[in-house]
């Protein structure tokens, strides 16, 4: 469980993280979603104590990160796959983590197995690694202490489709086993597939948060009818604001049930009626983050 309470980080006049409050719960994958430069990485660096917060606090299972006696055993961290000493071999980097945490040496081989780095690859220097291999090594370092909490910044970057699938299964398994997973991404699709809870951040501020299902419901309804204009007028008469898509569908911020009733009352035959789901979420995500960007530009 990670609890973040009104966290703020300012660099002079610029506020990178602005009064951010949310928690990542045990047994769930929490997706931290936002465009580039929204403050995701800064928030994560503050969580693990690399960046001092201007105000607010973070606790992990009730304690500050720096009060964890052996943090590697409690929190697995992957912030940047490129932040590895290029002159060390992959195996050596894992060995350093294993020794620091005081783990048995066999954990190194177990982790190399887990992330599918072969013995030959593990003996190569990290400067010769692809981004995907570095990412795998970073995951191995995060998992070696068998921690109950994972903090992963853009872990899918550089992974091939099979790797992304593997990562998703791994995180799902971790959360199902009772672990807390906080992962960030700027790709909605990635988060949507694996996350139980979603926190959307833009310009340092949280613009939406909740369970994925809740956010999907809030994303509204897509409806299609042969007589679109008539349906649109009926919806507007009911106080709703339908938006027309290029393909003739309408999106409305209301439940499919309500939209169906309105169509029935108006006597318009509906050809498609469903929750907007992922596409709606994406639209919402773009809207929300665009709004904060405009606000930022105006101020």
């Amino acid at each position, binding site marked *: 469980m990670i609890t973040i309470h009104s966290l703020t980080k300012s660099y002079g006049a610029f506020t990178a993280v602005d009064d951010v409050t949310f928690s990542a719960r045990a047994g769930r994958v929490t997706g931290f979603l936002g465009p580039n430069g929204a403050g995701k990485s800064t928030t994560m*660096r503050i969580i693990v104590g690399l960046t001092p917060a201007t105000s607010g606090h973070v606790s992990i299972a009730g304690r500050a990160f720096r009060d964890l006696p052996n943090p590697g055993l409690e929190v697995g961290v992957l912030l940047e796959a490129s*932040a590895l000493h290029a002159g060390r071999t992959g195996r050596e980097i894992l060995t350093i983590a294993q020794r620091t945490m005081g783990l048995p040496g066999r954990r190194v081989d177990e982790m190399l197995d887990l992330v599918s780095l072969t013995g030959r690859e593990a003996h190569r220097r990290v400067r010769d690694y692809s981004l995907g291999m570095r990412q795998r090594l970073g995951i191995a370092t995060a998992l070696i202490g068998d921690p109950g909490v994972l903090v992963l910044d853009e872990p899918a970057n550089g992974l091939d489709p099979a790797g992304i699938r593997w990562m998703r299964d791994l995180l799902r398994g971790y959360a199902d086993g009772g672990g807390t997973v906080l992962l960030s991404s700027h790709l909605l699709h990635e988060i949507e597939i694996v996350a139980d809870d979603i926190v959307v951040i833009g310009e340092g501020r949280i613009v939406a948060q909740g369970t994925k299902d809740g956010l999907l419901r809030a994303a509204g309804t897509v409806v299609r009818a042969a007589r679109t204009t008539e349906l649109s007028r009926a919806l507007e008469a009911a106080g709703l604001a339908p938006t027309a898509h290029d393909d003739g569908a309408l999106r409305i911020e209301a439940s499919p049930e309500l939209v169906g009733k309105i169509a029935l009352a108006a006597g318009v035959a509906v050809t498609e009626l469903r929750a907007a789901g992922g596409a709606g979420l994406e639209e919402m995500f773009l809207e929300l983050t665009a709004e904060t960007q405009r606000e930022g530009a105006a101020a």
Partner: protein
Amino acid sequence: MTAIAVEGTRRQAAPIRSVPMSRLAGVELRKMFDTRSGFWLMASIAATAVIATGAVILYAPDEELTYASFGSAVGFPTAVILPMAAILSVTSEWSQRSGLTTFTLVPHRGRVVLAKAVAAIGIGVASMLLAMAIGAIGNVVGTAITGTPTVWDVSLADAAHIVLGNVLGLMGGFAIGVLLRSSAAALVAYFVISFVQPTLLMLLASRQAGFQDLQPWVDVNAAQSALFTIGSPVTGQEWAQLAVTEAVWLVLPLVVGLRLVLRSEIK
């Protein structure tokens, strides 16, 4: 399907104990050897000691073939290489960005710096003992070749002073590393302080009569050289000059650097 082979999450059976300093120092020691450059830097200490010993045997006049000659000869390359090793052990965390992992695994940054200092001093002392042993072999072999008597004219106090001098030199580099946290900048600063500064100070002293008396209290290299002169005891004034110069060139940058390390953002 090895994918989900994680053993679930940790069931906290035993209370987690904090990472002991001995383990941290061991890890930091390992990190000084585990890259090619690190390894060869360390290997070069032994290699240059062998070369210096060979040079004394080849070029020193027979009557100077005593342990003092060997001791000074092997000490010189070590005194240059050790501070570089100490600098890199600190700065690589920033320049190579491995600090992101290091300071996440050990959030108390002061402990990491202390572990690095312990490892660096350990290496400094061990390297000096190794270099002196190589010098001793050179003394035995060299005098056997020339047929001159083997002279052991380095007292235990002399040897201790040489080791101390090297440790101070190494810690001077360490302090620059902590202060600047960039490999390139710290190495340049170290070379300027060790090789350019003495000449500048000497030049200044020769032009400015007033500075002449002050120079021994500023010039850290001159103060340290008192420790390296074999056969003459270190005087009280020399100890005082050493204390003052080290306060300026070692303690001050280390304290300022530590404050910066503790407060800065690790990126």
